């Protein structure tokens, strides 16, 4: 396979020989029969569908639609490459937590003139109820997903920060499980850093954030909105894998000053709640009174120090794409160091000059909603029709403050297996980070998302993207 010269291919670079991290894999691949691999590919899908079917048993007729395609060609990262990325992520996550603490306390960064107050004031994710709240260890975002893209040998950019509720870790674990099952011989030939410790690390990391009210071994529970939530499978999976209880709002209530879950032996207090319910629905007494997904009074117990909520309410402010544009300043402000990982240059359409530039260059830019996620509501200029661009122009002119724009990045490619053999497809990477008072734990690799359509730069599963196993090689 010859790679497309315009993009950096992680397997072949800009040439035709495999790059060093892929050498052993390519060697193995060349001795494999493509037909056998394609059959394996179907086997993998059957495995995933089985999981999907388990999901389906609970009564969701759409489960099969949620099956995210899996490609069996791994994405491989050398230990040396990863070390640098990991260092950058650690720095960024430290800064994020310091930022969140500051925003809910003195707002020094605003006082110092490094971040305009409007960035906070106009941010819907800013939660006044969190003002003055200091969670155990001052950790606000315990579980972070830092989305990265690569454009060259040494060029990594952060595409977005997911400090609120990064999902997808179950895919990372399942992908590895499936690869180990299908290609055990590969893993004996090539030494790949393990990811299977993630649930144990998650448990440990959450346990280390238990509140003072906790006595003995911390009790951890996963709060799910229920079986109709699209990530229910992941909630159940994580609870199971880390031996925590899977609970819904109606299983919990305030008992003796703690949030407690109903058990056969009465109510048992929960120390750390890994909640997968959004802020708005978390507590009908304090937030949306119509919510039936939350726990009335949990914010009161939280503010009194009786429970740790992970991630903390109000962390979503850091996911805002306008805040993202300030991340290099934010990293520098709180760590005193230049950001190791680069930000994608971002035009804030709220600024008249930036808006003018963006309107003049729509066909070359990617324009995103400030609060958007999942690849919805964005314009990929180079891939859009004239009509789509004009339609978007009208939306942008109507409310420029809602948008940011970025240059179209030359996202790296990694080959996928097609009927015609290997074919390059664009990828991104979501590493998963665990933060506790003692340490920041980054699982080697993460979730590689791949655009399955040739030439497409949109990797979101909601937009037809798939996933790959991600290997970080041993030293």
């Amino acid at each position, binding site marked *: 396979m010859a790679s497309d010269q315009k993009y950096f291919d992680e397997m072949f670079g800009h040439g035709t020989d495999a790059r060093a991290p892929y050498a052993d894999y390519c060697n193995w691949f060349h001795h494999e029969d493509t037909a056998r691999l394609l059959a394996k590919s179907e086997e993998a899908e059957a495995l995933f569908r089985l999981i999907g079917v388990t999901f389906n048993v609970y009564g969701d007729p759409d489960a099969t639609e949620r099956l995210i395609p899996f490609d069996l060609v791994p994405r491989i990262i050398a230990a040396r490459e990863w070390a640098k990325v990991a260092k950058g992520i650690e720095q960024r996550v430290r800064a994020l937590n310091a930022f969140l603490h500051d925003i809910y306390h003195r707002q020094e960064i*605003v006082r110092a003139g490094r971040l305009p*107050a409007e960035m906070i004031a106009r941010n819907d994710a800013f939660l006044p109820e969190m*003002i*003055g709240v200091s969670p155990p260890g001052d950790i606000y975002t315990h579980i972070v997903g830092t989305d990265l893209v690569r454009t060259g040998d040494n060029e990594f950019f952060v595409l977005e920060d997911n400090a609120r509720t990064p999902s997808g870790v179950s895919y990372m674990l399942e992908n590895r499980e499936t690869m180990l099952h299908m290609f055990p011989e590969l893993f004996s030939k090539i030494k790949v850093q393990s990811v299977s410790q993630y649930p144990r690390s998650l448990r440990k990391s959450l346990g280390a954030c238990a509140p003072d009210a906790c006595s003995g071994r911390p009790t951890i529970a996963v709060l799910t909105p229920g079986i109709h939530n699209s990530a229910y499978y992941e909630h159940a999976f994580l609870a199971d894998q880390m031996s925590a209880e899977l609970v819904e709002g109606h299983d919990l209530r305030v*008992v003796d000053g703690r949030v407690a879950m109903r058990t056969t032996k009465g109510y048992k207090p929960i120390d750390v709640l890994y909640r997968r319910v959004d802020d708005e629905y978390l507590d009908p007494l304090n937030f949306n009174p119509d919510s039936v997904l939350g726990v009335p*009074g949990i914010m*009161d117990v939280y503010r*009194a120090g009786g429970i740790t909520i992970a991630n903390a309410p109000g962390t979503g402010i850091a996911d805002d794409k306008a805040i993202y544009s300030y991340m290099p300043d934010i990293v520098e402000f709180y760590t005193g160091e230049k950001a190791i990982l680069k930000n994608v240059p971002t035009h804030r359409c709220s600024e008249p000059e930036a808006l003018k530039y963006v309107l003049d260059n729509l066909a070359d830019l990617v324009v995103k909603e400030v609060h958007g996620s999942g690849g919805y509501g964005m314009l990929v200029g180079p891939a859009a029709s004239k009509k789509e661009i004009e339609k978007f122009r009208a939306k942008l002119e109507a409310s420029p403050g809602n948008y940011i724009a970025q240059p179209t990045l030359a996202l790296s490619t990694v080959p996928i297996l097609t009927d015609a053999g290997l074919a390059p497809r664009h990828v991104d990477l979501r590493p998963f980070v665990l933060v506790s008072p003692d340490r920041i734990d980054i699982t080697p690799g993460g979730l590689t998302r791949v655009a399955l359509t040739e030439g497409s730069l949109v990797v979101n599963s909601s937009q037809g993207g798939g996933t790959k196993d991600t290997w970080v090689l041993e030293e």
Partner: protein
Amino acid sequence: MRLKIHHKTHYTYDAPVPYGLQQIRLRPKSRPGQVVEDWDINVTGGEVEVSFEDEHANAVDLVSFTPGQSEIEITCTGTVDIEDRAGIVGPQGGYVPLWLFRRSTPLTKAGVRVRALIDAAPQDGAAVDRLHALSALVLEAVPYSTDQAASDLSAEDVMEAGHGVCQDHAHVFITAARALGFPARYVSGYLMMNDRVDQDASHAWAEAHIENLGWVGFDISNGISPDARYVRVATALDYRGAAPISGLRYGNAAEDMSVILQVQQQ
């Protein structure tokens, strides 16, 4: 002035309540001009689960119903010593940025009627004078009347009703003050009416933030700034954030509430 307060809120339900919570903001705090000498909250039919300070530094208690109860009573008794400071409360303390008090909430959102009032308010002059003029305009547009059955009305609803109580006045004033560029907040508390010991209800007024002066109180219903007869208990962006009692309960039991409030000078 030294005020002795006795405030009892009694809820009865026509069926046992399986589970319920009440968030209460009924603890005044000592602050410049206000010394809380003693204050007790006693709950029967429920237990205090946790106590904490909210973002506005209000002391909050979360009370749970004793399961199966059909009555719950919250009694506050205490003594507070207050100085007349002509309504001046002072600078913004704590972490809440002033811009938060410019935010509109569902209860303090201006519609056409509130906007007409804003247009009629003086647009220049000394801030204190402008706000007193606004206070008078609000009372003129919304004369005091306890006829209004609905509580939790928005400022716009209040303007449409054309009359209201202290809570309604505070909401209209806050909405207009914010539109005129002043950070503004809701205050819930107690007022000793001179001619009586038994008060009809707890009181509510508003505070606006004026540059170089800080927070200044405006009791719209009485057309004055709070004096030594006013006990500040809780503040927030609107009634919902400062309500003395806000609750949530499971089951379909109908609620009936009665209040006894005595405020007298000692």
